[in-house]
């Protein structure tokens, strides 16, 4: 048993911690940094089931997704740096309580091995359940592109921990990596269209 498998509880705690931070943080810069750390733990979780190079692909795709969103925000001068939710009652205390409930539910589901996928280790079940639950909470609480993007990427990461164990083909890994990049690109585009820089070009004809 390699150290990756022996210490596999670390990424489970890591995704719970980074996922929790994603819910609680309001600063775009910190959200993207936390998301990047989350990808490191996700790659570790994938590495428990699959060879390290494949797990590294997940990490690289995730970091590229974070970089794409960060670059757009840098170009736009980090507008609305601190995100304050409007429509849904989501003060930090509310989000903290919701997070606690969701983590408890995810822990319970993980314990019951609800996914029942052959070949997936218990840490994989716990990790993916926590990621899926936190991602769903994220998109349920927010409508702002960066947050929705972070929520979707978290859900995708949770899904991939499971799906790569059952469908480890190269084509699927490449396609799902492309989905991560695609989500990041779409979120970047939405961020860009919301800035003052974005103007419909003049019609030439």
């Amino acid at each position, binding site marked *: 048993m390699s150290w990756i498998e022996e210490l596999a509880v670390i990424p489970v705690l890591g995704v719970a911690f980074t996922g929790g931070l994603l819910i609680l943080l309001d600063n775009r810069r910190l959200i993207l940094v936390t998301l990047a750390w989350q990808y490191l733990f996700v790659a570790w979780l994938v590495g428990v089931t699959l060879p390290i190079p494949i797990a590294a692909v997940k990490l690289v795709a995730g970091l590229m997704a974070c970089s794409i969103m960060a670059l757009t925000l840098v170009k736009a001068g980090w507008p609305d740096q601190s995100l304050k939710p409007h429509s849904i009652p989501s003060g930090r205390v509310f989000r903290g309580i919701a997070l606690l409930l969701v983590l408890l539910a995810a822990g319970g589901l993980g314990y019951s091995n609800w996914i029942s996928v052959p070949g997936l280790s218990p840490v994989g079940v716990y990790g993916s359940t926590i990621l899926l639950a936190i991602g769903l909470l994220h998109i349920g609480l927010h409508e702002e592109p960066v947050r929705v993007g972070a929520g979707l990427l978290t859900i995708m990461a949770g899904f991939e921990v499971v*799906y790569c164990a059952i469908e480890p083909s190269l084509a699927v890994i490449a396609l799902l990596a492309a989905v991560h990049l695609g989500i990041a690109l779409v979120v970047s585009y939405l961020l860009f269209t*919301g800035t003052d820089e974005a103007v419909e070009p003049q019609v030439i004809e």
Partner: protein
Amino acid sequence: MSAPLLLLLATGSIALSVTVLGNRPKSSAVITAIGSALMAVFALLVMLDEPLVVLGLPIKIYSTWRILGRALVLDGGNRAAIGFIYLTGAFVFGAAWATKASRNLYYIGLLSLGSIAASFMIQPFLFAAVFLEFTAMGAVLILVSPGHPVPRGGLRLLILYTLAMMAILLAGWMLESVGVTSATPELARRATLLLAFGFSVIMAVPPFHLWLPSAAGETNPYSLAFVTVILQSAGLFFLLRFLDNYAWLRAMPELFDGIRLVGIAMVLFGSFLVLAQKSFSKVMAYALLTDFGVMLLAVGAGTPEGYRLALGLSAVRVISLSVWALGLAWMLDHPGGDHLQLLRGAAHRSPLAATAALVGMMSIAGFPLTAGFPGRWGLLLTLAPLDPIAGWAILLAFLCVGATAIRWAYTLLSEPRLRERKAINFSERLFLGGGIVMCLVLGAFPQLLYPWVVEVAAGMTQLFP
């Protein structure tokens, strides 16, 4: 050379050439429409796996492109569907320049068609869900633009399609690897639930329709029409392929009852909400919901005739919705100007555009002598003896959307807010007039369209024995 690679490369190259053009709507429309039509011709007519001589050079175009252990295959089972989707694109792109749509519509729209074509060609076909996700990403970029920057509808679409992709991929794994059959009821139940969720999202079944009215209030109506037409067509083909591939699904009688029930619920939901709308774009969104519901009723008949009618309704929607959206987009002076009060008397300012919008709407409602009528009538005759409630639902959809059309006709024809006529040039007149004529001609002569559309499903040998 492989045909799938050629098709996708050509699609990408044309899209790239449109980006180089900058914001030239007419040139972009001409290039994407012609390019899309050529792709359709290629998909329909290319000779596969046979030696050919082109300009004195011997070549062979293979039907299969292998990449990373998977294959994209163009064959008799999907070439008509690919041709259909590219022809849809050609039809919509052709008139897009008259609608002030964002330039994303042209090149992202073309790339989205390529993604749908890939979803038809990918083997195993379950991975089509990933390509539908790419199409949804393209749809978001089409719906949101600097001119229409509110991203709520687009974000909802992206969230829903991402969740649907995951559900379908997991269900696919259960079907392919675990071996779901009618002899494994627990697994079959799980797979069916996942599939039901995935397809509910793809077919915009309430409450997964929420992106549609949001997007309708935020975007150019023509862009919305394009997005809904391609997503729904791709979703319908995907659903039919599932039914074609898995005998145990077809053998579940409760599945078709369930599909009909969902269709009836959609029709009721859309029909009542369409009456309450005060924005013409939202009327379009809810009328579409009733139309999707009617299409599901056709699929829920569970007979080859029902599947054929679903495909026919899908093709008719391309024409009806494009004409409606073209007229509406042309009438709008600014984004959000489609409120009942703001469009009062618009028919006096833009008579041809108002007529196009109303004829398109009446065709979606299924009025006699419009393109939408023969399909609805055929479905009513097929379904009413089998399920009378479904028959009543079709009539209700007609009555509610029809009544809304009459109400909007009254609004558009009432005393104008502004008296001066909006200038219209010859080509705009040609496209608007052509759309109206097409809706009426296909209403009178449905045999011009339906037999061809039915060929789209020729490869589904289990559904169409």
